[in-house]
């Protein structure tokens, strides 16, 4: 059938693009993006600044990262493999997360690039709507995949950072401290879950070993709630400490926790408990045979004379 718009007809009949033509279009696309690299990259960086994204970074930094992302972007379109981009995105996230760059900013810049490139395609193919459609058919899925890759990499990196910080906090939050020869205190602050309980037991047992401790004061003033599982962990920790020859004195059980534990039916009868940390340390000193006496020259005495 003869047609005035022969080219146009061709394009329309071939929507639903065969893999071959998609590849050809992507090649054309890549060539276009390479050719206009400088201008498009600048346009993108300008739009980023305009949208007030990546405010934590300087203009030069934004331009440098924009260049790398741009080149990686083109490479993904060319090779179809997101691996290099993924690695770069992870590396980028690692660098910018500590500087306070937020998820919306990262998604924002990728979507901006998508927009900048799409607009340049509109411009290039404005005379041929059918061809533009086919170019977009090839471009869109790849662009979506890239946006996804960068976004997911960022979020994963963030989650990894959070996990690391959680671990660090856990490590920090269970110090085993030596107060006197053979006397340790273990102040527990915050929520105890099974993992932390396990770690706590380990650290305590190691502390008992290295300090050759005979008495441990375990203070749970800073623990907001204790359920039967946590109580069980505490009981087991105490039993394990006893096997190593150390007596555990538990202090800081709040009235609410005491009531709750009794209602649940946890039997802490075998535990050696003293009201507060001070009382616990005094009891421990008594057990170890220490006697603490205040001297006349002590701070307390001075305060009284001054008053």
């Amino acid at each position: 059938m003869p047609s005035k718009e022969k080219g146009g007809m061709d394009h329309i009949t071939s929507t639903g693009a065969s893999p071959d033509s998609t590849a050809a279009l992507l090649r054309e696309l890549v060539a276009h993006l390479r050719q206009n690299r400088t201008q498009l990259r600048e346009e993108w960086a300008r739009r980023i600044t305009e949208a007030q994204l990546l405010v934590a970074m300087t203009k030069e930094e934004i331009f440098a990262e924009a260049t790398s992302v741009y080149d990686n972007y083109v490479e993904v379109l060319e090779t179809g493999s997101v691996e290099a981009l993924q690695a770069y995105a992870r590396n980028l996230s690692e660098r910018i997360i500590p500087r306070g760059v937020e998820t919306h900013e990262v998604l924002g810049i990728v979507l901006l690039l998508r927009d900048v490139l799409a607009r340049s395609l509109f411009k290039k193919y404005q005379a041929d709507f059918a061809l533009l459609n086919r170019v977009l058919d090839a471009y869109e899925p790849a662009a979506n995949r890239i946006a996804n890759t960068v976004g997911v990499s960022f979020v994963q990196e963030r989650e990894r950072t959070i996990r690391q910080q959680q671990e660090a906090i856990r490590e920090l939050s269970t110090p085993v401290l030596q107060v006197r020869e053979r006397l340790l205190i273990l102040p527990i602050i915050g929520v105890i879950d099974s993992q932390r309980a396990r770690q706590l037991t380990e650290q305590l047992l190691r502390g008992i070993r290295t300090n050759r401790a005979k008495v441990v004061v375990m203070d749970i003033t800073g623990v907001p709630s204790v359920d039967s599982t946590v109580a069980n962990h505490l009981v087991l920790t105490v039993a394990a400490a006893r096997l190593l020859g150390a007596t555990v004195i538990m202090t800081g059980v709040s009235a609410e926790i005491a009531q709750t534990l009794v209602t649940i039916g946890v039997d802490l009868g075998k535990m050696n408990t003293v009201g507060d940390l001070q009382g616990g340390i005094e009891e421990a000193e008594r057990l170890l045979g220490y006697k603490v006496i205040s001297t006349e020259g002590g701070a307390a005495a001075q305060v009284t004379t001054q008053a």
Partner: protein
Amino acid sequence: MENEVRIAINSDQDIVIARQQGRTLASKLGFNGSDLTVIATAISEVARNIVEFAGKGELALTPIQQSHKQGLMVVAHDDGPGIPNIQLALQDGFSTTASLGLGLPGSRRLMDEFTIVSAVGKGTTVTMRKWVRG
């Protein structure tokens, strides 16, 4: 009126979140200090059962009202293996693991109302209510 809170329970961390959310909501509803601990603990027990036995499930915290009483309803639901013998599971000290076996019976004592529905192979739903003491 405060809104319902739903929490997906998949891990130990979620138990902590559930407990904190429960405490926050209960505090907004006017529960006092020791009841807050009681509620947080009961939530902790049922959430832990989900993690331990079903692997994953959901917890819903809903403000409720009856005549002039304000209260909190806690529904813990999972599609886990279910409990073959509920009577036994509600007995103090009964445990199929190395735990104290106090989770369910303890929660029942902590809360004002407690019902449990379970079918083997289908899952378990625990519904608990606590009323603000006037």
